[in-house]
C-alpha cells in the first residue's frame, strides 16, 4: 500500500497561511460579513430582468396566443373576455418562471416585476385570471434595507443601504429590431378567406371584388410586422420579410 503524505510547504509558506487566517478571523470579529439577507426586513436588490410575478396590459395585447403556445409548463390558458377577445390567465401552480411568454409577446403586453413573494391559500387560488394580472398583487412591505451583492473577480462584497427598492421595472425599452412586413409569397394559392384581413389589428390588409376577381393587398406602410396574419393564414402563404 502506498502512503499518502502531505507535501511539506516549508516554514515560510506555513507561517504566511496562518497569518492570513488570523487576519480574516480578526476582520470578521470587528466587521462580520454575513451573506444572509434578513428577509422580510431586508430585501435583496434584484436585477431588472428578474423573472418574477407577471403583469398584463390588455390594451397592448394583439390576441396572438403566442404566450399560451410557447409556455412549456402549459400554465397559460386563454379566456374569453367580455369584449370577445381572448386574454391569458396564468396558473402559478404550474408556471416555472421561464418567462418565455414575456419573451414571445410581440407587443410587450406581458411584463415582469421583481415580486417573488405572493402567498396563496390553495392551488385554485394560484390560477390567476386576466383581471388579476393587470394590477400587481397586494404585498406587505416590511423591508427597510436594500442588500446588494457586489461580485468582483476576487471577492463577494455586500452592500446594505437604507432604501426601499421599487418592485416594478420602468417601461420596457423597445428592442432595436429590424423592421419587417408581411408579404404574400404565393398569391395563386390564396383561397380568399379573409382570415388575414380579420386578424390584422392595423388594417393593413384590404380586399375588394370587381368583375369576378378579388383583389387583395397588404399596405406595407401600415403593417407593423406583428406576424399575426402569417400565423393564421389558412394556406400558409404569407411571410414576414425585411422592410
Amino acid at each position: 500500500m502506498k502512503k499518502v503524505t502531505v507535501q511539506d510547504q516549508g516554514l515560510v509558506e506555513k507561517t504566511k497561511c496562518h497569518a492570513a487566517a488570523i487576519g480574516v478571523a480578526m476582520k470578521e470579529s470587528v466587521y462580520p460579513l454575513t451573506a444572509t439577507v434578513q428577509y422580510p426586513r431586508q430585501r435583496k436588490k434584484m436585477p431588472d430582468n428578474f423573472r418574477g410575478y407577471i403583469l398584463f396590459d390588455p390594451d397592448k395585447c394583439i390576441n396572438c396566443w403566442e404566450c399560451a403556445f410557447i409556455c412549456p409548463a402549459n400554465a397559460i390558458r386563454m379566456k374569453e373576455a367580455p369584449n370577445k377577445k381572448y386574454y391569458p390567465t396564468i396558473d402559478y401552480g404550474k408556471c416555472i418562471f421561464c418567462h418565455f411568454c414575456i419573451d414571445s409577446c410581440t407587443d410587450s403586453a406581458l411584463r415582469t416585476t421583481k415580486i417573488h413573494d405572493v402567498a396563496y391559500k390553495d392551488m385554485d387560488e394560484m390560477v390567476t385570471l386576466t383581471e388579476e394580472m393587470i394590477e400587481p398583487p397586494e404585498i406587505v412591505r416590511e423591508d427597510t434595507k436594500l442588500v446588494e451583492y457586489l461580485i468582483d473577480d476576487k471577492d463577494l462584497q455586500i452592500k446594505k443601504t437604507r432604501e426601499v427598492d421599487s418592485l416594478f421595472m420602468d417601461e420596457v425599452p423597445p428592442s432595436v429590431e429590424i423592421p419587417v412586413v408581411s408579404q404574400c409569397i404565393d398569391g395563386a394559392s390564396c383561397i380568399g378567406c379573409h382570415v388575414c384581413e380579420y386578424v390584422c389589428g392595423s388594417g393593413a390588409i384590404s380586399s375588394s371584388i370587381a368583375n369576378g376577381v378579388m383583389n387583395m393587398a397588404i399596405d406595407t406602410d401600415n403593417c407593423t410586422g406583428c406576424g399575426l396574419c402569417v400565423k393564421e393564414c389558412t394556406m400558409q402563404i404569407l411571410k414576414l420579410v425585411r422592410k
Partner: protein
Amino acid sequence: MHDADIKACEEVIKMATVAESKWEIKVPDKPLKDKLYFENLKSVVIDTEICSRCLTCAAVCPGGITVVGDKVDFPDYETKCLDCGACVRVCPRFVYEPLSGMGSSTAFIAGRSNRFAGQDGAMVTELIVSAMEMGIIDRGLFAGRNENWETEMFHVRDPEQLAITTLSGTKYTFADVLPELKKAVKFTQNGVGVVGTPCIVSGVRKLQQEYPIFREKVKLVVGLFCTENFHYSAISQYLRDKGVDFSKLVKTDITMGKFIATMTDSEVKFKVKALEEILPSGCNVCCDFTAVEADASVGSVGSVPGFSTISVREAIAVKILDYIKEKGYAEFGEGDPGQLGFLVGHKKKRAENLKK
C-alpha cells in the same frame, strides 16, 4: 460582431426593399346567388347525395366543414362560413363529370414486395417507401387503423415506422386523407406521397389544379382500385351482426365477389352484393374504378393472388419502379388488364344512377 460584418448586414437590409404586396383570386361561380358558398355546396353535392366524402372541401375550408354522422356538414355554417368559395372550387363533384375506364397506362404489371407485407403484394407500401428512399418525398400518408378498425391517418417519415403492421392493408372505411394532406403540405420539406381511393385522387388533382402549393408539394399520388367504400358506422355494425369480433380481426378483403373477414381463429365470408344495402350514395354514382388520375394505380384484380396489380401512368411512377427493380426490392410479373373489364364496366354503369 466586427464592424465589417455589421456593415455587410446593413447593406443586405438596405437591398431588400419591399414592393407592395398585391394579388388576385378568382371568385368561383355561385349557382345560388344570394346563398353562402357552403349552401351552394350543400344543395348541389351533399343534399343530392352525390358527395363522395373525399373531404377535399374540409381540407381547404378555414371555417369548419367536417363529418357529422355519415354526412359531410358544417355545423353553424350560417355564422361560421367565411364565404370564400374554396370548397366549391375544389369539390370534384360540384361540377361532376364522372371519370371512368382504365385511363392512360404506360405499363400494366404485377408486383410483390420482398420487404413489406400488405393487402396483396404490398406494392403501395413499396412505392411510397422507395420514393422516400429516393428523396422524392419526405413523408407518405398512410391510412392506419385503431383496434376498432376505425381509420387513423399516419405520416410515415421513416421505413422503420412500417413496423406498425396496421398501416398497410385495406380498410373498407373512409379515411380522412385530404385534411391530413393539407397538414403534410405545411410541414414537408421535399414533398408528400399520398395514397387513396379514386375519389381521393380526384380531390388531390383538384387541389393541385386550383392551388400551386399542392402542385409543388404533392409529388406522388398512388391510386387504389375501388368499387366502393363504406361508412364506419354501417360496416362495423354489419360485420358485428355477422359475428365478426373486432378484437380478433386481422384482415378484411373483397375477392371474387366475396367479403372475407379473417380473424385469428376463424373467418366470416359473405357475398359483397349483400352490402348493397349499406352502399354509400356517393359511391353509387362513382364511375372510376382504376383511379384514372393517379400517377400509378394499384389493386388486386389483374394479377395472381399475393401480387398487386399496378397500372403505371406517369413518369414519376416509372422512375420509382425502376429503382425498385434495380434494388431487387420486389418481384415482378405480367398483369392482365382483361380481368378488370367486368369491374370497370360495372362502375361505368353507375353513371345512370347519377341521372336519377
